[in-house]
Each structure stands twice: as structure tokens, then as C-alpha cells.
């Protein structure tokens, strides 16, 4: 059996699923302000005690990362290292950040020579001495490092090299986050996402510790797997959350969208999560949330993260809601509309003219359901230049293998991971370049 929990700002929801994925019990308790783990404990305690002892998996949406960025609390001081040198010095790191957030996270910045490109001669060798000076200068002050190299999504070698140097200079246990593992092409947005990720390290580690310490009180089966939600609607282990806390940004809506689909038995739909004040509308595509395109912001900072595409409107403004629902359709009137969330009953079918409206049972706890019923996930993408002697199939296999490896790192059972190669994307105005992408899913490794 599996328990899923969604710690929201007002309420914390929990559901108990049987072995066939059916909801046996669902509860909603008020959240404790500023205490995600306490809220989780309270919600789980509200579930019937006896079946809890047979629970082998707990999947949790904590939403602590998003709140920390919004409220600028609990963020680590980050050493921001860019590897690009003169190829990338015309806009400095953290340029355009809200001053308060920048002050809250920045221990120091440097831009050192290095970085890659798409051609064989593009880029420059890494200035290892400069990396070492930066690391030594911030030793004891930086609580984490964020490393972003030009074209790291095509080749992450220099970022890994720099991480090794930083650890040698500033301490082996200082977290070092690498941009190539965070986002896609677009240096500034990827760097921003990497810095936020690093800034969340300490807070997330503390919450993971609290959660681990609270486990014995939950009365689950011994050795039950504990997983947390991530922004693509999949799960990851607590260890993976510690390594990549930014992956949890956007995970609340992602799990709600996914849960809405699972509860209503559809794989493609528009999902509207109706809260007390706000309604959030997203799209479910082949069972997973549709990702936002470029232009996403977190805490006022432009970032490239695979967060769900969402429109937020006033829950009481039904005309705005109808328009948002239509905007999230992939084609005219094609998809059913799944209404979930505590406020769904206040939206009559007639507010969404021309739509097939679905109101699944347990829609009030769709986020918790989505957490409980999702697999562990991983993804990888790489931009490649197609040329003579370049065997694309071999590269595709490698991308697929790396997606699988990421899912395993995130806690998936390596024997049961399946991979999905997404369609290749072309890059505008860049003949011969392709973006290869793969995703991987699997159940958590049983302990």
C-alpha cells in the first residue's frame, strides 16, 4: 500500500492507496504554518491506523522550496561560478535579480575562462587556477556552489572538473550544483535555475532530516520507501532531493495535474485546480503535465526549469477561467476538462460552455493522489550537431541510457525502468542541430 501526501499552504491532504492503486481513504487537515513535516505527520495520523502498518511507500509533495524562494527564507549563500570567460561576460551572473533575493543567496560570483560550443574548435580550456582561487576565496563562506558552463547541455566535462576543484578547495561536503544537470540551452536562465537550486540545498537537507526523523512516528511498514515529488509529475528519493532541490519547484501543481488524470482515467486533458481564491489551469499530455516554454520565472527570476505550464486566474471569475481552460487546450475543444480542488463544486458545468467536464471522485485531494500513484522519474537531453561520421542512433541510445541512469539515481528500481525517447527537436536558424530528449520511469527500489 502507498500513502500520498500534499502539503499545501492551507490544507494538507493525504490518501491511502491499495495495491491496485484504488483510494481506500482520503483526509484533509489544516496545515501547520511553516512546518511542512509536522503537517505531514498530522495528515498521515488522520488516516486509519491499521492499514498504515502495511504501507511500503510514502510519496510527499512538500512545497517547501517554492515557499522559501517566494519568502526568501532559509536560503543558502551560494558561490556562483560561470565558465565562459570572454565568450560570456556581457551580462554578469545574477543580473536583473530582485535585489533582496540576490543578497539572500549570493556569497560571491566569478566568470572564468572555459566553456564549450557546437563545433570541434568552439570553446576554450578551463582556467583551473581561477576556479581554485574562487573556491579558496569562498571557503567557509559559501554554503553551496552553482557552476554554469557555456554549452554544458552539450558537454558537461568542464563543470564536473570545476566541481572537483571547488570541493578540494572549499570542502568535500559543500554541495556543488552543475547547470548541465539542471536545464536546457540558454545560459542566463539555466544559470539562474542552478543558483536557486544551490540556494535551496540547506533548507531541503534540513527538511529531509526532519522527515527521516519523523518516519518512526508514522507507523508505516519497516523500511518503507520515502519519496518526494518533482516538477515533471514524477518522484525522487530524499537523497536525490538533497542533490537537486530545485527539481521540487513546481511539483505541487505537477502532481495535481497528474493526479486529476489518474483519478478520472484520462491521459490527455485540461486540468483546473480550483482553490478558495485562485484557480490554476494546466494541461495533461500522455499522462504527464505539459511543460512551460521559455519565459518562466520563479521569485522574479527568469529560469529554465521543466515546470508545468500554468495559467492562474481568480477562482470566482468564471469567464477568465473559461478562457484559461480554452487557452490550455491543444486544439479546438478537443480535450475533456477535469475539475479538481476544494473549490471545484463552486464552478458549474455551464461556466465552461462546450467542454466535456469531468469531476472525479477524490478530486479534492488530487495532488496527494498524484504523488501516491506516480513513478520515480529521470530525464536527459542533449543538443547535437548532425555531421558526417556522427551516428545519431548511438547518441540517441546514450541519451536514453542517461535518462535511465538519472531515474536510477533518483531512486528507481533499475530492473524495472522503462525509457521513452521524445521526438527530436530542431533548433531555429541552426541547420543540422538537433535536441535529443529522453525520459525514464520506474517504481522505487524496494528496501
Amino acid at each position: 500500500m502507498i500513502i500520498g501526501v500534499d502539503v499545501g499552504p492551507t490544507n494538507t491532504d493525504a490518501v491511502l492507496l491499495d495495491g491496485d492503486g484504488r483510494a481506500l481513504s482520503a483526509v484533509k487537515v489544516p496545515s501547520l504554518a511553516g512546518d511542512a513535516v509536522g503537517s505531514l505527520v498530522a495528515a498521515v495520523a488522520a488516516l486509519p491506523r491499521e492499514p498504515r502498518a502495511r504501507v511500503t511507500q510514502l510519496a510527499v509533495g512538500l512545497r517547501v522550496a517554492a515557499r522559501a524562494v517566494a519568502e526568501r527564507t532559509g536560503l543558502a549563500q551560494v558561490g556562483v561560478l560561470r565558465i565562459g570567460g570572454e565568450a560570456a561576460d556581457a551580462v554578469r551572473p545574477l543580473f536583473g535579480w530582485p535585489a533582496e533575493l540576490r543578497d539572500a543567496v549570493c556569497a560571491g560570483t566569478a566568470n572564468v575562462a572555459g566553456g564549450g560550443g557546437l563545433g570541434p574548435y568552439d570553446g576554450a580550456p578551463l582556467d583551473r587556477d581561477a576556479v581554485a582561487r574562487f573556491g579558496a576565496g569562498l571557503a567557509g563562506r559559501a554554503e553551496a556552489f552553482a557552476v554554469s558552463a557555456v554549452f554544458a547541455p552539450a558537454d558537461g566535462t568542464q563543470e564536473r572538473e570545476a566541481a572537483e576543484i571547488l570541493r578540494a578547495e572549499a570542502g568535500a561536503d559543500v554541495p556543488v550544483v552543475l547547470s548541465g544537470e539542471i536545464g536546457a540551452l540558454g545560459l542566463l536562465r539555466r544559470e539562474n535555475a542552478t543558483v536557486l537550486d544551490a540556494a535551496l540545498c540547506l533548507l531541503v537537507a534540513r527538511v529531509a532530516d526532519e522527515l527521516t526523523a519523523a518516519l518512526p512516528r508514522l507507523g508505516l511498514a519497516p523500511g518503507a520507501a520515502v519519496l518526494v515529488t518533482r516538477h515533471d509529475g514524477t518522484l525522487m528519493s530524499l537523497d536525490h532531493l538533497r542533490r537537486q532541490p530545485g527539481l521540487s519547484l513546481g511539483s505541487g501543481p505537477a502532481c495535481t495535474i497528474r493526479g486529476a488524470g489518474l483519478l478520472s482515467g484520462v491521459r490527455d486533458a485540461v486540468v483546473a485546480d480550483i482553490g478558495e481564491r485562485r484557480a490554476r489551469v494546466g494541461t495533461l499530455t500522455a499522462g504527464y503535465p505539459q511543460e512551460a516554454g521559455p519565459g518562466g520565472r520563479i521569485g522574479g527570476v527568469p529560469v529554465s526549469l521543466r515546470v508545468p505550464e500554468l495559467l492562474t486566474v481568480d477562482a470566482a471569475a468564471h469567464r477568465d477561467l473559461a478562457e484559461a481552460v480554452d487557452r490550455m487546450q491543444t486544439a479546438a475543444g478537443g480535450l475533456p476538462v477535469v475539475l479538481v480542488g476544494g473549490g471545484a463544486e463552486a464552478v458549474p458545468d455551464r461556466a465552461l460552455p462546450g467542454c466535456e467536464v469531468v469531476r472525479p471522485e477524490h478530486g479534492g485531494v488530487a495532488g496527494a493522489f498524484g504523488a501516491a500513484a506516480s513513478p520515480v522519474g529521470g530525464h536527459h537531453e542533449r543538443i547535437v550537431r548532425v555531421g558526417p561520421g556522427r551516428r545519431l542512433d548511438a547518441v540517441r541510445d546514450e541519451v536514453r541510457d542517461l535518462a535511465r541512469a538519472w531515474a536510477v539515481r533518483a531512486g528507481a528500481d533499475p530492473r524495472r525502468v522503462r525509457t521513452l525517447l521524445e521526438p527530436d527537436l530542431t533548433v531555429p536558424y541552426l541547420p543540422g542541430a538537433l535536441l535529443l530528449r529522453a525520459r525514464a520511469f520506474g517504481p522505487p527500489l524496494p528496501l
Partner: protein
Amino acid sequence: MDAGVLADFARGCAVLGSGGGGSPAAVTRPLAEQAIEECGPVPVVAAGELPEDAFVMPVGLIGSPAVAEERIGSRAEPARMRERVEALHGRPVAAVLCSEIGGLNGCTAVAWAARLGLPLLDADAMGRAFPRMDQNVLELAGLRPGPTVLADEYGRTVVLDHVDGPWLEELARAAVATFGGHAATSEYPLTAGQAARHAVAGSVTRAVAVGRGEGPPALLTGKVASVRRDVGDATRVLLEGTGTDAGRLVRIEARSEFVAALEDGRTLALVPDVIALVDVHSGWAVPVEEVRYGLRVRLHALPSAPVWYSEAGLRLAGPTAFGLHGLTREGAS
């Protein structure tokens, strides 16, 4: 041009891109913002305010916006480009001219002018965005593209001499491919007098005005009802009118840019007209590759510089240059 005006300018440049030319938001706007912050606001002057023989350096980026977003460029680039251009011509650069106002390159010119401490001409060489380097009004005026300077962020430089427009396009694209998909360029070097006579006058102030929402009213307010992307680069968009425009249906043809808007067999707008879909929620023009079902947009059409409607202008960048045959300008703006 200070940081405040730059915000409107960038939004206007996106509209003048006619759906192409790359988005200024990701890189070139912050590029210009930081350059203005470090070097001060940029004086914008009419070409006629400068001495007739003052030397003007056009600037722009070519290649893939995706690569430009990764290799965001060097603060040293503008000075290196000026040095090379001055060495080729044996005289000092007095002002910067934007090669292409539409899309991401408007902000590039602002950034470079700020770093060089030079005025930016209130003009440009296209009045909008076009995919080819030789699709510009200086080519129409018979100016020579060479010597054209192409350089990467490290200062690796290629100079193209004795080229005409088509050769410029061919050789520059080959050089850009070797540069990894991105380069800074200066082509069609000219004097202030030539700029006053031949460049598209008032482009910078026009972009600011467009960015502030000034100009003719929208042709249609509606939503994107369908998007079809064909093999190659042809895209077809259907717009369905909403509100007072309910019941109207407009078809938009696109290549790298939006090139035609048609309604009931009538041509609402046709390249070289600027055709823009402006997102009613964000106020930003939507690039061709980001148009998707359900977007709420205003359809705008703006006239291009008069020279683009001459016989030579239409040959270089009119409907047939984009494979649109059999469309007439009847009823076009």
C-alpha cells in the same frame, strides 16, 4: 535611450520582427540593460544631425538565437569590431547603425553603442526583420556590403571583400556555421549622409512608439484556432475573432516571419508589411515558433518603409521571395 525607454523599445522591436528575428527578452535586452547601467544612456540622433561624411558602423548578430542565448557575448566585442572596421576604412567611427531593428538585434545595437560611447542613429537597414542579410534597404540603394566584418566573442574575425548581396549571404552563412552558429557582423559600412538618404529613418523612435502601443488599431482581436507546421519552414495559423470580431476568420501564412494575413479571399496584409500577433495578456509579440492553439492575440499590420514597395524592393523581399505566388496586394495596408 535609458533603461526605462529600453523596455518599450524592446517590446516594439519584437513587434517589428513580424514574428521573426529572435526574441530580445532572453539575452539582448539584458545585454543592453547592463551596458546602459555601466556606460550610461545612449544618445539617439537622426543621421542628418551628423556631418555628411561622418563614418557609421552598422552592427548586428546573425545565426541562431539559441546559440546567442548560450554564448551571450563579450564586453570587449564592440571595441574590437570598431578597431577592425576603423583599420579597414582608415577613419574613426562616429555612430552606430542598427542592421535590423526587428527582433533581438535592436537591443544589440543599443548595447554596442553604449559600450562604445557612440550615438545610435535613429534609423536601421531593414525597418523590420528579414531572414537574409542582403534583404535590406542599403542593398536596394546600391551600396556595397563590403568590407563586411564577422567576428566571434573571442575576436576571431573574417572580412568579406568585393562581395555583392547574394555573395554576402552565401559566404557569411558559411562563416557563421564554422563559428558554431553565431557571429557579430558589420556590413554595408556607410557615411552619415548615405544613412540619411538611404537607411530607414526613425526606426528607433518608431520601435519605442510601437512598444508603447501607439499606432493603428488592431486588424482583429481573437484567438489562435489552429496551427499547422509543414515540412520545411511553412506555418499556417488560423485566427478566430472574439468579442466584437466574433465570426471573423483570418489566415496567417508564416515562414521565418509572418508573411501574409488573409480574410475571405481578401489580403489584409502582405510582406513586406510587418505582421504581428501580440499576446493580449503579456503585451509581447509572439514569435512564429511559439504560436500555439488558444493564445489570445491582437493582429497588427504595420507598413514597412516605402522603398520596400518599389519594384526592386518587392523583388528582393516581396511575396514571391517567400514563395507566395498569386497573392495580390489588393486591399493590403
